[in-house]
């Protein structure tokens, strides 16, 4: 199923923004909020892992039921997980489409990567 992915700040993301290596930051920024009806169609429950694929890459996140969203949109707290799949195109403005990228979501058995693992395969080294 295809969704429009919106990203944004949350209190918890803000609280841990200066502690990006913490489990709490990873947990918060890898949670994907989905409308409960959409979750039913995807055949997933709260806490299940899901694979989000965009035109440029894919990433595993945890599904989080959220009836505040309209069907067809998902919300992800801003951070390294959503940026894995946001295209770099800025339409000549310098600003990528942080609030309007299309993603395909499927259930998965894969686990959510750690923040470090997200960067390891593009040359990041542990500090």
């Amino acid at each position: 199923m295809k969704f429009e992915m919106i990203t944004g700040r949350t209190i918890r993301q803000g609280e841990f923004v200066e502690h990006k290596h913490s489990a709490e930051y990873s947990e918060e920024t890898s949670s994907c909020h989905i409308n409960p009806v959409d979750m039913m169609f995807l055949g997933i429950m709260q806490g299940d892992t899901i694979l989000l694929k965009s035109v440029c890459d894919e990433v595993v996140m945890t599904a989080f039921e959220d009836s505040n969203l309209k069907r067809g949109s998902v919300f992800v707290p801003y951070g390294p997980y959503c940026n894995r799949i946001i295209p770099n195109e800025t339409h000549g403005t310098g600003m990528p489409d942080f609030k309007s990228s299309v993603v395909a979501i499927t259930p998965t058995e894969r686990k959510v990567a750690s923040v470090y693992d997200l960067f390891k395969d593009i040359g990041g080294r542990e500090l």
Partner: protein
Amino acid sequence: MIKKNVICSFCGCLCDDLSITIEDGKITGVDNGCALANAKFLGKERLLKPVIREGDSIKETEYNTAIEKAADILKDAERPLFFGWSGTQGEAQAKGVHLCMLLGGVIDNTSSLCHGPSILAIQEVGHPGCTLGQVKNRADLIIYWGCNPLEGHPRHMSRYTTYADGFFLKNAFRERKLIVVDVRKTMSSDVADEFIQIEPGGDYAVLSALRAIVRGEEKIIPESVSGVSKSQLKRVADMCKEARFGALFFGLGLTMSKNKYKNIRNAVELTDELSRHTKFTISAMRGHWNVYGANEVFTWMTGYPYAIDFARGIPFYNPGETTAAEILYRKECDALMVVSSDPAAHMPKKCVEHMADIPVIQIDPHKNCTSFFTDVQIPVAITGIEASGTAYRMDGVPLRTKKIIDADFLTDTEVISRIYERILEAKADV
């Protein structure tokens, strides 16, 4: 000991009424702050010494060695990129511009990833804004468009709008009307008198529809615009026209979504339209505590607020070409200096990849995702806690943050000045 009237250097609200309890030189309590302020003032984790990467290992070192290494990297670079600046003091921002000028590099601040599009719109149509004091004392209608202040700027409502009594509004909560416009329900929309839920990407159309209604052209508006009913749009237009003083605040929901700066342009033009009926203002909800300062300092030094390229020996500004995301994606820079920011976490992966191929210098008290790519990280005193420094509030009011505890760290300004001097010396030796 309790220090009163301390400024919080976390978000663009720069709340200046915090009381901080200090025991044995350490912060043990925060009063008046929100959850974000508590996390900032009571945060314990930080980098204690400069670090340098050698092969696969990372080694602690002294300031002199780290500064020397940073200067060596920069003096050999042909097109260094200097990025960040929203979480540091104005004095350091000014030094950063001098350093970039000296090396003919590119300097960009985080507004290219937040309110850069707002600036582009303001350059086209101007900014009918005002200070937050005006809003607090006079505004009887508040609109939050594409933002969720209760989470992003938790005290904005209690300090300046909905819950803040003002000189002409003795009982603000009852006398002020609140409209929230967003694509999803949020904590902020829950307390609104009117919540407009727009389909994603529909902001431009809804702003245009409101402009048409305010102009008296409602007959051309269809029954529904981007998921919003015509009757609600008419009701909202009436609320705006009937207000004595309206203040529209907008967030990244407008700048980051489809149409980007054209959304803001349309919002400014709606403000203009409404000002023919009543008093109306518009302001951006600036995120980082001194991102506005970065725009101010860069502008008074170079003429441009962000994305400035000195390769020609004079400042050149072309967002979309000279913005950090593009410079990194095109693999154009051969060194990167990041000051108080985390581009690895906040930029698309395609932009981050290049960081693995070039030397990266980081000036930041905290380890973050950019630290995975860093060759030298220099921890600095935290402005507003361990060092004083100038910051600009989201409405452009400059405030002086205070030093409230002692610490053995250099400030951002001192570190950048020393790198600058070291490069000058090296250039003189050639």
